[in-house]
């Protein structure tokens, strides 16, 4: 990831005053980031007669149980399953497409400029407009919008640019000599890809997969117009917000965060282990 680390040396062994000022700012920023989330976590344990703000009227797990009951307004467990499935598919597709494209961009080929700026445009385009365009297209073709067609496509326009730029960074660090050595030793193009290129790029690829999964799982703006009838979790929550506010919402928030944590934590741990093993720290 980041290499940095050059620090300001002062005359003594102490730190300049700016260190403390910036550290304080950083601490404040963390509080600012986590504060509201903590409120949600706490409020999700709200007592059965409590409301959506403080004070806490006792504590309970009532609102967590509420999640599992399919209410008339929302069906959380089902939409959660859909979100996970969609995220898994988007993640796999993003990895396959970005890795191939990342390898392609090592050379300048005709059209590489256009494609690059197209990817940038796809990234900065206001999300709703992307959904709008896709929705119009589906309507024009007489197709019904659906989770695994239009919504999937809309999410790909968001995850692929991220994946592509991440792969640029990964591929740039990749020494071409490895591939030449593989050629020298008799590998065919497929053998080279399978035994040399992909294994060496693996930590980066896992990072892209994890990033794409998260982006998809949390995504709502691109998919809201083209989701069809089967909502993902963020959109289900969106529907809930407009209709009713109860601490159930907060319980959902807590659970979703927990799931994200789990997924990303596991992936990070895997990457770390891979990198440490390859750096020779841990005997293989």
């Amino acid at each position, binding site marked *: *990831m*980041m290499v940095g*680390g*050059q*620090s*300001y040396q002062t005359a003594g062994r102490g*730190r300049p005053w700016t*260190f403390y000022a910036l*550290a304080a*700012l*950083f601490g404040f*920023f963390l509080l600012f*980031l*986590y504060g*509201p*989330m903590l*409120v*949600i976590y706490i*409020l999700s344990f709200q007592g059965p007669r409590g409301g*959506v*703000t403080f004070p806490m009227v006792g504590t309970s797990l009532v609102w967590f149980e509420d999640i599992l009951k399919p209410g008339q307004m929302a069906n959380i467990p089902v939409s959660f399953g859909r979100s996970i499935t969609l995220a898994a598919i988007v993640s796999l597709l993003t990895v*396959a*497409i970005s890795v*191939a*494209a990342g390898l392609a*961009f090592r*050379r300048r*080929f005709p059209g590489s400029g256009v*494609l*690059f*700026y197209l*990817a*940038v*445009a796809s990234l*900065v*385009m*206001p999300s*709703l*407009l992307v959904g*709008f*365009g*896709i*929705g*119009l*297209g589906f309507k024009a073709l007489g197709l019904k919008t659906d989770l695994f067609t239009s919504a999937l*496509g809309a999410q790909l*326009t968001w995850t*692929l640019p991220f994946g592509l*730029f991440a792969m640029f960074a990964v591929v740039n660090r990749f020494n071409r000599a490895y591939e030449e050595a593989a050629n020298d030793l008799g590998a065919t193009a497929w053998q080279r890809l399978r035994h040399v290129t992909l294994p060496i790029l693996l930590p980066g690829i896992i990072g892209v997969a994890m990033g794409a999964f*998260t982006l998809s799982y949390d995504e*709502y*703006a691109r998919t809201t117009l083209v989701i069809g009838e089967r909502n993902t979790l*963020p959109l289900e*929550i*969106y529907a809930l917000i407009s209709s009713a506010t109860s601490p159930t919402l*907060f319980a959902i*928030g807590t659970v*979703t*965060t927990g799931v*994200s944590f789990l997924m990303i934590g596991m992936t990070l741990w895997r990457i770390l282990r891979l990198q440490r093993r390859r750096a020779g720290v841990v005997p293989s």
Partner: protein
Amino acid sequence: MTVLPLAVAALPRLRRIGTASRRLPPWIVSWLQVSPLAFVLIVLFALPTLLFAVVSFWDYDRTGIYPAFILDNYRDLLTTPATIRVYLSSLAFAVIVWAITLFLGFNIAHFLIFHVRSAAARTLLFLLCAIPFWTSGIIRTIAWIPFLGRNGAFNQIVMGLGLTTKPLDFLLFSSFAVIVTYVNLFTLLMVGPIANSMAKIDPALIEAARDAGASRWQIMIEVIIPLSKTGIALGSILVFTQVMGDFFVVKQMSGGQSASIVSTLATEIQAMQYPPAAASAVVLVGFVALLVAGMMRIVDVRKELVK
């Protein structure tokens, strides 16, 4: 052990074994590798954009939409004072949020890269900043409601500390709330690219500047800021476009006091009034494109990202 005179070129040569490169020319290989990406971007992004650009010229009434080529949608859009008001309001939000996230983002990136000495601590702290991103924007937005409300946590703390006697009203359902939420959501978009740029600065440059007698402040102005230009530009592009393209935060947090360009658009789409929505979309896209093109003049994005 001799070097042959060039006359040897005239000697009959042994016939070559094997045919001249049965391999594909490299640019074809690249095209094959990049075709899935091209397919997705063209079919799911470029064509739909073209589609709504076309529809923006169509006619419509209460019953349906009709293919045509009229400029009425644009005229209506651009001459309504409401449009201008909404654009100015969005732009104002964008600028304020940009300034705050730039200040926060730059200082945090600077802290992480230049003041934190151990790589492990740096990774940990950066992770800490990134973790909230793993929760959906929807939840992070509504999380502010119990926090900023009249009976919310912030007011309780502030009153508990005795700083005020009445709960602060302006905190929620106001422009303040909108800005606070935006900053919460988007600061990481600044921290990331800027930290990336800063990490690439060769430490020898800073030492050379110090050798030449520059104070820390001068080093910041003369060395660090210019060399972080790319990160700043990238972060700015991301923050601006996210704010201008938002429809959810404004709706939830402004209590109806402000509208956003996209939420107005969304309403028209709900009402199936596609042509004016499309015109609105085209204008927004044009606006965003101008902004982004402007920022890309400062920095050659392609060179930085692909290099």
